[in-house]
């Protein structure tokens, strides 16, 4: 925690940002972002032996930086194990970080403790994927939503009950449901309860961690529309984490694509989908089945599986699966290429991809479009 030297409450002017591994410039817009994440790393120790000595780290998040503006949505996509959930939880300090900074309204969030931290946390909430395990089965819905109101000393008794009734109504549930228990509700209704609980403290920022993945198609759109309405109404910023690319595109202003603990591409939502640059993004987008019986796009079927974050590939982490580097290597001279083993088969790839890690740099296209690939335009 050596990075937390800054005294709490001292407003920190956004510093010019330089990182050892991630040279992407996070230019704070005038007015300032609501949330600034700089070079965030979350490492989990791997312990072995009698004395549980640390023999290595699972680098679940390894150098992630981004900004979220007030009232806007940053979508975060990637496959399971890419670290997107860990990013959301580390920002809220539900998981300890290894390194990096999070600034909330210009304040160093990791520097806060005790009472001040609690006050700041009121403004930052989370909605979980699984509406079954994230609601206490022994509490009534009224108590689940009312608990944060009481803990933070906002209201008690009749006043609290009135607030709970108002919240239930706002998320589309009957206020009389406050006396019921979570098991009496369907999945979609439980997710509405989870949203009401997050709203109870009038937050400015909500981490939505796969909020609709566990829901049926016809219920998903109801919840997405509700989250959308709440954002317009209350100017809430979202970090919207999901693996469903169509949902993320629909919902986000900007989208970041993660692969093995890092952001490999980030752009305004429409731009990213219309004009993807990173080979992983291109493959990921092409893999989404279209609800169209005459699909127009070609599908790139990636070889191999996502590598383990405890032992990520050297250089660009995507190189063992990357179609672009293979294709380039086929036409390159032998001294530029390297032979590797991927999925048990020998493959020739570009040496640069194996030896050097690419950083996020601006790419041709709309401003704000960055990608981490040596060879894409």
């Amino acid at each position, binding site marked *: 925690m050596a990075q937390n030297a800054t005294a709490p409450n001292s407003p920190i002017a956004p510093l010019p940002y330089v990182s050892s591994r991630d040279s992407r410039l996070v230019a704070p817009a005038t007015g300032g972002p609501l949330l600034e994440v700089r070079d965030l790393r979350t490492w989990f120790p791997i312990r072995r032996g009698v004395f549980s000595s640390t023999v290595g780290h699972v680098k679940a998040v390894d150098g992630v930086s981004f900004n979220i503006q007030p009232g806007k949505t940053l979508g975060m996509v990637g496959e399971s194990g890419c670290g997107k959930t860990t990013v959301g939880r580390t920002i809220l300090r539900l998981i300890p970080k290894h390194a990096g900074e999070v600034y909330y309204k210009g304040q160093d969030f990791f520097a806060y403790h005790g009472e001040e931290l609690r006050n700041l946390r009121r403004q930052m909430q989370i909605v979980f994927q699984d509406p079954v395990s994230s609601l206490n089965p022994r509490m009534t819905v009224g108590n689940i939503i009312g608990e944060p109101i009481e803990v933070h000393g906002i209201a008690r008794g009749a006043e609290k009950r009135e607030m709970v009734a108002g919240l239930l109504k706002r998320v589309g549930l009957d206020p009389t449901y406050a006396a019921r228990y979570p098991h009496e509700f369907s999945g979609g209704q439980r997710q509405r309860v989870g949203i009401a609980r997050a709203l109870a403290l009038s937050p400015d920022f909500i981490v939505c961690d796969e909020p609709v993945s566990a829901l049926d198609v016809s219920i998903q*759109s109801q919840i997405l529309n509700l989250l959308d309405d709440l954002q317009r109404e209350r100017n809430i910023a979202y970090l919207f984490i999901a693996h469903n690319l169509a949902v993320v595109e629909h919902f986000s202003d900007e989208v970041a694509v993660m692969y093995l603990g890092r952001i490999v591409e980030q752009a305004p939502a429409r731009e990213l989908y219309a004009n993807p640059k990173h080979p992983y993004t291109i493959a990921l987008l092409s*893999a*989404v089945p279209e609800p169209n*019986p005459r699909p127009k796009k070609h599908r790139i079927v990636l070889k191999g599986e996502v590598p383990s974050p405890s032992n990520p590939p050297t250089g660009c982490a995507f190189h063992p699966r990357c179609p672009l580097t293979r294709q380039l290597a086929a036409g390159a001279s032998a001294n530029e290429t390297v032979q590797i083993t991927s999925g048990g088969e020998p493959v020739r790839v570009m040496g640069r991809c194996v030896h050097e890690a690419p950083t996020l740099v601006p790419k041709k296209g709309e401003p704000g479009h960055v990608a981490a690939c040596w060879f894409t335009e």
Partner: protein
Amino acid sequence: MQQPLLELKNLNVGFDTERGLIRPVRDVSLSIYPGQTVALVGESGCGKSVTALSILRLIPQPPGRILGGEVLLEGRDLLKLSEKQMRGVRGKDIAMIFQEPMTSLNPVYTIGDQIVEAITLHQGVSTREAYQIAEESLRDVGISDPHRRIHEYPHQMSGGMRQRVMIAMALSCKPKLLIADEPTTALDVTIQAQILELLRKLQQERGMSILLITHDLGVVAENADVVGVMYASRVVEFATVEDLFDRPQHPYTEGLFRSIPKLGAHHERLETIPGMVPNPMRFPAGCKFHPRCPRTRGCANAIKSGRAEAAIPKGSNVPPDVVQAVDAEGESFPALRKCIEVEPTLREVHGSHWAACHVTENFDKAPGTVPQLEHRREVVPVTIEGDALPDVPVTNAAAMGLKA
């Protein structure tokens, strides 16, 4: 015309519960032709998985009961076979793969042991030959180094690999029909693409039929030849994949299509189907979809404002009789009397397109035929293997085949 490989005729399945009989499958009829992929699509609890399990007679009895109907495999009624004869069908003629490959594989046996068990049981070969067949089937599903991996345990493999093992196991006895129950739901999209491509390839090579059970309309659109949409234990629409997506007839199907976010259609507000899927304990009377149905509301409102002719589709002949109905949240709304009193059955409203809705064009005179469609899809998605890209300018995204 070919004979269907499998025909379901008015299949009815019930479960005895403390609160009485529930009926997760009601009057389901469909047919699957050789080499065809038929998809059953619907939301959780609609009865699609129970239908699949009933084909193999795998529902636990009791509390489950087949209440009636026929399951004809090449004309032979599986419901009339003895348990012993049925064991000869399972795995050999019809194989099944499940959503969660971890729970479907036995963790204390190597994958080789598990595949070999099925092969020796059905093919009467020696253990040694069976291991050879198992190795080959692992190679067929794209597992590299099968000679070594055949001795691994399920926990040593990733989710995608386990699903490949499940497929290898299911296909080792060369079944005529593969039932795939949400085969890719637990997998990431890039792995999903691998598995679906593998199934397509194996189907082509072997001429096998697939009954694909899924809730993902994208998976349906790209893989099915023919689609049945299930809602509240019934098939409410049945058509070719092209027809279903071009001209959905049932208001539930329409609603589903409108409520899914599509890539490239950024930030338009999603349309929703109000309410939720009914609990089979408390199915509403009449059409099970009426408490959520925008069509019956729209019609009823139009009739109330004196526009009955415009509101009711041609050939529907539903009486312009408006009553107040109650939705799942207890709120009252105007609906057509027929919708809340009479449950519509599946009828052929257009040539080769079945739907179960009173307020559909031609519904009144449409014949209640058994849905049979020997159709193959027009366009099969083009896939590019990750290591064999077309020869094109490399720095261009379009060149990688994303756009046609």
